[in-house]
């Protein structure tokens, strides 16, 4: 019995594109003592693979399936490998005596923009995983998969300039991929000029609210804080909802129009604002989500969507005798209007994503 354990250099398997995954593979012979046997492996290899799964409901419906049958096998489902790293041969003809343990380490540099991010959409799924495969002599190949979450990077295109004095270079360490990306993200997400929207319906005369958003670009884990001002509105708003959602857009000619788009709600608030002159909201972009990205088969857009429930007339106070008494209306005729604007969601530090995301363990083991 050999136990094979692949461990990553991080506690949670979340990486930015462009980083390097360091994998340590430990092979140990579990048999102990005198009766233990020397185990042998023909070879062992390590590879990063990105698979794309096109959702069954979209393109494998009968009509499209007949029009263009996808080459599938029983093993791969509808998955297609869209990226695979060059395989790393860890060892050949490895022999381990009883109780013996050997360690191999391997770096897998992630391409900056060649690998699609890990994404679980409704229409398309991209799953990245490190596959460890070993083979006994004259036996089947055995493999284990370690899922990796890859967050798309930004800002790696700009060439990093080296510090000028080479003797100071060691003290001024070069920024890592994460630092470069985060510097770009920080720069992009800085609030420069607030976005102000005067929200109206029917005609420009019937004003509903004045919306202020501090910025358009956010990173994962950020809160989108906004301010709605109902002062001076001609149409009273009784309730509104603010939603952060992603729109998944399939770029595939074969799919009919209606199935090309899928919306996922990430965070929602729906306060009653019947009596409020203004309102603030705070919506958080989950750290587990995928930032804005696009590949040749899917495009992911982030949006903030509002629905305003408006009524004709505000709460009225009637006079009744010598005391002014009023009570709430039982029925309030309402109309609702929707409005949305695009947001740009940028990557966060992978270590931050690891704070919340527990779905990507950093190790996997198998026994052969």
């Amino acid at each position, binding site marked *: 019995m050999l136990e094979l354990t692949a461990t990553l250099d991080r506690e949670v398997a979340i990486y930015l594109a462009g980083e390097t995954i360091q994998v340590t593979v430990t092979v140990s012979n579990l048999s102990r003592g005198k009766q233990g046997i020397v185990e042998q492996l023909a070879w062992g290899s390590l590879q990063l693979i990105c698979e794309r799964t096109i959702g069954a409901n979209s393109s494998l419906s009968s009509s499209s399936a007949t029009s263009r049958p996808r080459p599938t096998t029983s093993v791969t489902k509808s998955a297609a490998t869209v990226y695979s790293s060059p395989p790393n041969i860890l060892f050949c003809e490895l022999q381990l005596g009883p109780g013996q343990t050997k360690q191999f380490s391997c770096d897998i540099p992630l391409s900056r923009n060649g690998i699609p991010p890990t994404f679980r959409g409704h229409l398309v799924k991209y799953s990245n995983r490190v596959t460890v495969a070993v083979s006994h002599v004259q036996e089947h190949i055995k493999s284990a998969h370690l899922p990796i979450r890859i967050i798309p990077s930004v800002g790696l295109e700009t060439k990093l300039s080296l510090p000028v004095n*080479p003797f100071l270079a060691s003290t001024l360490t070069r920024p890592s991929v994460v630092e470069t990306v985060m510097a770009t993200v920080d720069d992009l997400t800085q609030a420069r000029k607030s976005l102000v929207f005067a929200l109206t319906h029917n005609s420009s005369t019937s004003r509903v609210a004045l919306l202020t958003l501090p910025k358009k670009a956010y990173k994962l884990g950020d809160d989108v804080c*906004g301010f709605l001002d109902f002062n001076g509105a001609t149409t009273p708003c009784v309730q509104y909802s603010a939603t952060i959602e992603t729109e998944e857009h399939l770029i595939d000619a074969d799919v009919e129009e209606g199935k090309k788009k899928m919306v996922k709600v990430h965070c929602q608030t729906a306060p009653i604002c019947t009596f409020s002159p203004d309102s*603030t909201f705070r919506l958080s972009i989950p750290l587990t989500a995928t930032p804005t990205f696009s590949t040749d088969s899917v495009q992911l857009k982030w949006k903030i969507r509002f629905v305003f*429930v408006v009524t004709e007339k505000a709460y009225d106070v009637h*006079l009744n005798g010598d005391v002014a008494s009023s009570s*709430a209306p039982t*029925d309030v005729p*309402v109309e609702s209007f929707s409005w949305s604007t695009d947001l740009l969601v940028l990557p966060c530090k992978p270590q931050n994503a690891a704070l919340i995301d527990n779905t990507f363990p950093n190790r996997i083991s198998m026994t052969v």
Partner: protein
Amino acid sequence: MFQNDRASVLQLPKHEKDSIEADIRSIVANRERRLIAVATNDAIYIWLANPQLLLCSIGVIDQTFRETSGELKDIYWKPDSSSIAVTTNQNKILIYNLELKDDELCYNFTDPADPYFQRNSPELFIKGNRPVAHLHPTIIINLADVPTCCVPSRDEFLVCLRNGFTHHVTWTGEIMSSLSFRASAIPFSIDQLQSKSENVTSKSTFITDAVYAPLLGGFAIVLSDGKGALLTSNDPNFAPTAILGVWAPNLKDATCCDVNHKFLLILFGCKNGDVCAYNIDELNGALIQSFRVAPKVTNGPDLTNRLGPVHKITALMNGYGFAAVWAPKDKENSSSISESSALPRLVAVFTSFGAQSFCNLEGVIEDHLSEEIENDMYTAVEWGPEGFQLWLGTKNDLMMQSFVRSASCSNPIMEHCDRAVLMGDSQVLISAARDREAEACAPHSVWNHIAVTHEYLSSNWPLRYASTDRKYKHLVVAGDQGFAYCSLSSRRWKIFGNETQEKNLLVTGGVFIWNDDVIGVVGVAADTDKSYLSFYPMSQRLDNRFASVIDLEHKSVMCALRDDVCAVFDISAQITLYKLTAHLETGRDAFTKVSGDIVTVIRINEIVPHPTCIVSLQMTQLNLDQRGKLAPAFYSSIDTVLVNISGRLITLSLNEEGKLHQPMVIASYVEKMWHDRCIVSQSTLAQSLEPIWNGHKRNGSNVSIHSVSTTSEPSSPMNHPCSSHLSNALWIACGEKGIKVWMPLVPGKRNVATQEMTFIAKRIMLPFELDIYPIVISARDCLAVGVESQLQHVARTSKNGRMESITMYGLHRNSEVFVHHLLRQLLKRNLGVFALELAGACRSLPHFTHALELLLHGVLEEEATSSEPIPDPLLPRCVAFIHEFPEFLKTVAHCARKTELALWRTLFDVTGSPNALFEECLQLKQLENAASFVIVLQNLETTEVSMDQAARLVKEALEEKKWTIAKEMVRFAKSIGAEDIDALTPPPSAKTSLSRRPTVSSPSADSSTEFVINRFQAGAAGRLNKVRHSQSTDQKDPQRKDSIGSSKDKTALSRGLSGELSPQLTVNRLAVRMTSILEDHAWHLLNNYWILDLGFFWAELQFDLLGLLETRRKQISISPKSTNENCYLVDDFALALTRLHAQFSWPYPVIGSQFVHQIEKKLGNIRVSQSTASLNGLVNGETSEIIKPKARRAERTNVDVNTSIPLRETDNETSEEDVEIQEAVLERVHGSAVELAPVVDRSPSTSSSMNPVSIAHAPATPSSCDSRSLAGDWQNTDFLVGEKSSRGNIQSSRQIDLLLDLFSQTAAIDWIFLLCLLSRDERKLRLEINLAMVRRAGEKSFARIRFACTELGRWAVEKCCGYVALLQAFDAHLSVLAEQAGIADIKYVPDGEKRKLSLKSTTEERGRKRVDSGGATLNNSFTKQTINGGRRERSRSADRAHKSVKRYDDVVCAEDALEKANEEGCSIM
């Protein structure tokens, strides 16, 4: 209570168009807190708490009515919410009937028919109860005087009047005159037993505020004279004769009051802004003050002198806190008010025992507060449902602020989380895993927001309970009815499929997750009113079909869980422990069934005044005895049940007979507690304890401070969670009174034999204070984690289009280290051994050094600043303690740097002189710490001493290549004013009034210490500034580096640098000395050929290397022969070259295969040998080489050998005269063996004559071209010496380039030559070493490098044949140049006999070699060649006049080739 949003403003519809503003007087929630009644001066509004909708309102608009009845003041609810009473500022009380129609709903939003305008999101459809409400005026009660306050109850309400009378009034408006009493008639005493009673002296005294306190047996009242009291009576009707007042002692200025029922506290607000709380002494019924607090604002507007009386206090219904609002200070009372602006609106929230958890002014910048309105204050405050809302009223607005609180309030299951888990009315926030925070960015603001699904919440708002499992995999929440749970990774919620089942389940005692797969619920069935404990398996749908139900006797209000034992506390004050067992139900859809067996029942009704009073319940194990017989326990690992009754923490345990011990109170005023043992089960704990206890045993019984090994390896926190002291400690938060820890002292572990273990191991209660209020106390890493609400700004657009910002609250976690408090407390109590053990267990913590520093600093600050002499100072003990750790020097150094100078003497009196510490640092090579001590020395010691030590440190730092320290020290030396360091030289500027001298000498005079301290401090302040200044320049470093690095103009740089280094007169002696040290070091580096270090030295210290090298150049040019006096010449070029290789990690050149091929081609017609064949089969050779690595060494020796076969002695590398080569060279070659591989491959079969180098000596055929021309043809010398990949890395080559640049500026021609050689850059050589350079450097220097070239050539032949061709090319250039310069005949003859000898011997060798390899004919050609060479060079120089420099060599080469073609027997060389 924390806040994570902005207060939302609610507009009150105006009843009169012309009414000025809504002046909110009172906000009161009804009993269920679903309805909020708001009274303004002229109207009453009934609001729904969620969503915030106005249900009905009634206004007083009749002018005449208003005149007779006055303005509205306070509102009181009838407990059944059917009526409200409103007091006015005239002699009237108005009673209104509230008609609620629960079956009818208002605010039914109706969508239009057009689907385009319909709502589509379920969140937009509000559910929940929105009853139609109407207010009807019913009764007006006329009174004799103005009512001050009322106390409503079921049938009647008490009305206190301004004339001193208190009446019982029924809700129908009848005054029960028989029960009326007068404040002046009430007898007051200080306790309820024997003390003498007295009446209020003044007849005009009346009750201004009163609150019913049923659990305290009466009413809490505030009298008009500012006194507070508790009115009790043994008569249920509160008959006037039976009333007894109990004074709240030391209370003279009360303004308002409220009662915390759970903690049995009466809260009084005072005129001076304090809030004080009283509880009842159990023995005599007297009131004892529990705490007194004032709002604190650390980072916002100043409150002192602006804080007015407390306007209103309102305690949370569940008792876990209270809120208070303040009025600004009265203008008449304080004259100073005009200077500072009035108090802004102030509201603060405190925990039960007075720790402030929120203040609205915290972090507010006063200028940002909206335009100040006179007397702007919160006029009313009230808690909404479950304390998730705080309703606030001002003169204009009604506001609702939402709050979140810790999920552990009234939910003991969540008390021991290692993360902060907060819950709001509709969401749960979980903080990030702490062990992953180290590398994250701003982890303190990362929260896992879990919004409870709308499907559940819309009809069950608000949340009441939230629990997670220990691994944070699932979350279960319970609201009004039923419960819901979700998986935290997928966020999928499960709710009851059957809504009636949900409606029928009322959670009363909490929800929890047991065994990771079962949800436990303690609740009541709404239809049968039966209590039960039920379990729902997570694997199934949420349905009662799958539930396992355990019936309970009484309604339960609290539950606790440890391992598989569940404890339930019910309203009969009975704790029942159930042992839970899971069975897997067999069948098709198998699910887990849970059964419970009663383990034990504990009745504690005698100690529980009322079931409400239970704050917390935990099962734990306090007995730490691991050996011997087991102590009596309720269940295997539960020997103690901890209950917190109204703040008194009580242990319940069994005695030997299995009966309940007398309950023991271990602490009072307890709000919260943490005990790791409540969650960690016996087995796991025992495992983790094992190594520690073994450690204790090892130490033996005679443990002295020294024998406890602090040097033992600190184990990693993973396998060694924490010391048994900490993991078994019970942490207690006492609100305003700070934190306490009840720590076991585990004494028996040391001398087991002698000491009898008691039931509860000996424990000690240590108090300490934290700056934050802890949510989590982590015993594992000694960190307290808290939460604070932080302001953040959100942009808004104002009406006129301008951008403004509004503030919103965000939640942040904060944490605090506290182990130093514990250490200090232990040391104070002479428990140093335990302190050492504790510290030993914490050593692996990242903040351990910091904690030691805090310990030392804290003790030092306290004892050094104490005005009275301390009889038993802690400082020596503390220092001795820290001395046990290797961090001692660092701790002292850091502490010194962070404390005032005035305290240094106290510190160093104990630790020993800073000089001694400095010496120790140097010895241990802790140079950073030594640097800290130099700063100290500079202030405490004489100039000479500090100068000497600083110089020593710099030397040491340079030696150790700690450039930063050296740089810091040099900068420090420079920053010291000359007047400070050198008293002999008159200060250039006379502005120094603070001299160090008196302060240094004065402490010897013991008298008038105070005076000394004062003066010392004065001096200290000045000096401290200087020190800081030097530090601040440090911070500018990076910029400076950049500017220097980026400036291409090095001369400008050097000017700047030299200017900085020698600002002539102003420079102090120390700086001068530093400069000389630096210079010496630069010479030292240069002389030893440590060129890379020189580069670092130059760059890091910004040393004026140019100036230095310039001096060197001048000296050399003056007297080139006087080597190594003070102008270090390169003496041993071979050594220098090998050092360069070693330092730059630069691989040695190998012969390029192309070159070999080319030569082979050229020679092909003469010789075809076995070896050439092997050259062709290079690849094969390589692979075979890899497979047989063992052969490598022997073969490499061959490489060396085959160039000089006759000289067998060179085989033996150890016998070489140059040791350095061996040390650096070989290792490097070995490391990059692949580079050498081609050579290696060839060697085995290479016969002596067939080596590329020996080819060079072989007679060339007429067709062949010589190697020099070959080199010339190939501009890139890579061709000569192998592929690009065998060069050093980019970094090294950039370093070499920079140094080359430096040397070329100073015409250090020898180093230029060497560096060019190293980088194998012939073009560079041609570029750098030109005629101008030769002129600058001097003829002699040039001659030296020519000599060096030949000498190296000789060396290369022996040691590194890769260099041979290159050196030949270089030599060619040099000789051309020599001719150009007309100094070809000047030869350098090295001094000393040895040199000559070696030269001679090498020439001989060479001769012999050639004889051997080439034969006699070769010899002839050799001599001929030299002659030819000479001729050629002349012809070249002639050519030079009309050929461009660039193309020149090529042309010459071509000529040469022609020339040579004509000559016969011309050698390649």
